[in-house]
């Protein structure tokens, strides 16, 4: 397609455009179903059975079962939809967002209290900020990996 997608050079960021939306359609629609207490209870009682009632890909189901939000996003999920899964688990948006960085809850919370993540080095792929691919996962998880 001849239209620009100027937003593909930002590290650690997926823009939810029509292409993502098509890919993630049933994953996101499944998430919407968790907006009723009854469905949340049914989902928690048997997650696999609940997921199997939706025409999602097996990978999408695995990503949900693993609660791996980055994986969910790669398969077309959008954070506002995925947040319904977190809500079902009693998680806050801070816990959900932090989980995608690899940091522990405390690490992420401390980063936010200290003023959040800097844009410097994180504006474009190829710079050297903490959100760049070469620095993942962040926090102690990343350090352990290097040790």
């Amino acid at each position, binding site marked *: 397609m001849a239209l620009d997608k*100027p*937003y593909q050079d*930002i*590290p*650690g*960021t*997926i*823009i*939810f*455009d*029509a292409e993502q*939306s098509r890919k993630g*359609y049933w994953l*996101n*629609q499944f*998430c*919407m179903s*968790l*907006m*009723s*207490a009854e469905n*949340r209870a049914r989902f928690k009682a048997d997650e696999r059975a609940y997921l199997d009632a939706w025409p999602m890909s097996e990978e999408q189901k695995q990503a949900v079962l693993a609660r791996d*939000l*980055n994986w969910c*996003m790669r398969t077309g999920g*959008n*954070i*506002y*939809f995925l*947040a*319904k*899964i*977190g809500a*079902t688990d*009693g998680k*806050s*948006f*801070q816990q*959900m*967002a*932090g989980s*995608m*960085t690899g940091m522990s809850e405390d690490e*992420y919370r401390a*980063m*936010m*209290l200290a*003023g*959040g*993540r*800097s*844009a410097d080095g*994180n*504006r*474009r792929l190829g710079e050297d900020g903490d*959100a*760049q*691919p070469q*620095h993942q996962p*962040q926090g102690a998880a990343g350090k352990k990996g290097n040790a």
Partner: protein
Amino acid sequence: MARITASVYTSHVPAIGAALDLGKTGEDYWQPVFAGYDFGKEWIAEQKPDVVFLVYNDHATAFSLDLIPTFALGTGSEFKPADEGWGPRPVPTVYGHPELAAHIAQSVIQDDFDLTLVNKMDVDHGLTVPLSLMFGQPEAWPCQVIPFAVNVVQYPVPAGRRCFQIGQAIRRAVESFDEDLNVQIWGTGGMSHQLQGARAGLINKDWDNRFLDRLIDDPAGLSQLPHIDYVREAGSEGIELVMWLIARGAMADIAGGPKPVLRKRFYHVPASNTAVGHLILENP
């Protein structure tokens, strides 16, 4: 005649709603956030708006992927707080102003904006958190509220320029309504935040503050900013800030009137993942 007397701008972080609903407003973490709205609460108690035209975005609540309106105007008479997955917020039902909303629809559509009219929808934290911040925790909201939901979830979202223009059209519509009404317009969402991926937690204080400067003094120039700048500088969810341009576009100076008076400016980091920004601009 109905008049737009003021515009209010504020972030609408869900955690702020949770802090209020769970009685945590006095905690060290939250106290400075809520303190930023003390002035606004007093101010609005004096202003007594009849109607708030509340610009916000739906966060995959009323609108799933089945149907995605760019601009959705709530013409219904009531809107219930939504269950976003944590159960509905314990806040009052929102009552609309169907007559004014229908009047705005007629005027704005004839002005070449392609609205979607909505009579039935639940409203999420994007709409209820600003009400809580400005009105506290009353039994009933003290005014009627016309919800105006902007798509900033699935791209393409409307350009800042388009948002600024529809604000101007909304002003023309309100000012041609015969009934004597004190109308405020609120722009909500933002400021810098990113809720996804390895870049989650991005905050850009300098950029946010330049945005506030320009929103006050150079809104027409600011409205030319392309989406990519919002995303790159203020995080993927920072794009919500385009909605502030709708409220700003509805102020008198944009139609050749006098400059608005800045009654309040507030900025704080963080509330959960987000930078909190808040402005009050009054038409003199």
